[in-house]
């Protein structure tokens, strides 16, 4: 799902939601949840962290990287999310 405007790179907002069963449409101007504002790789990283029971060591093992590399990625993402909030 795109999270940035391809024209001006501004954050996108949700303007329409639709029910697949009864075709009800809701229009408005909703902010995307913080998680969805992240890029796909960042979302995957957080999901992997969750699935590894919050173990950076385990994530590093799965990704074939060292612990400090994975921890640095995590620190950078924490910093980014703090700024987004």
């Amino acid at each position, binding site marked *: 799902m795109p999270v940035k405007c391809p024209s001006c790179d501004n954050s996108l907002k949700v303007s329409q939601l639709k029910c697949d069963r009864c075709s009800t449409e809701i229009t408005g101007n909703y902010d995307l949840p913080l998680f969805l504002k992240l890029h796909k790789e960042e979302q995957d990283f957080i999901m992997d962290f969750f699935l590894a029971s919050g173990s950076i*060591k385990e994530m*590093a*093992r799965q990704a*074939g*990287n*060292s*612990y*400090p*590399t994975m*921890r*640095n990625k995590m*620190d*950078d993402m924490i910093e980014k999310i703090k700024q987004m909030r």
Partner: protein
Amino acid sequence: MMVLKDYLFNPVKFLPDRVQTGMSLFFVAGAILINYCGKTIQDGIYHTGFLSDSAPGLLVVSTLLVFLLPSALLFIAGKTFNKGTRFIDLWNSFVFSMVPLLLVNILSASLLNEAAATQLAVATNAGVPDDAGLLVRIAILGVIGLPCFIYSIVLLVNGYKTATNAKKTPHYIWMGLAIIAAEIIYRLFLYPSLINYFTK
């Protein structure tokens, strides 16, 4: 090719932690062995001298200190801006960065000996040494030693960057200060104390 390059210039980033620690212990043991066989000793963090009748205990303790002291100071430097810095990562980074210099030590021990080093020290004050063979061996050491030293610095900077998540210039200034402080502390205080202690 890209992966090989990454491994060559920043092994700390990719090798699993246990492999790194195992390799670093192996390299430290290798450094002690090189010093023992080559009758050399680390009289500075980045300098090796000849000492023909050194006690094995002196070799072990001096070599361990040469690795431990800079790692500890780099760890303190990293802690100042990143609380998550671990000692083991800086130990591994520093040991890996010393590997090219261990190769130079092997070469130095096989090309030179204590008599040649003494002759060189005397000749440095008096002018060019007379021994042509010695000049050739020094030239070979210089040609191989310089790239190895640059490679060592590259490994140290990349390892430090990975271990501490350093991004800004002040972070690297801390690194430089830690290395300079380690060299000064070791050369001026620790090495003379070790020599005194083991030659009593």
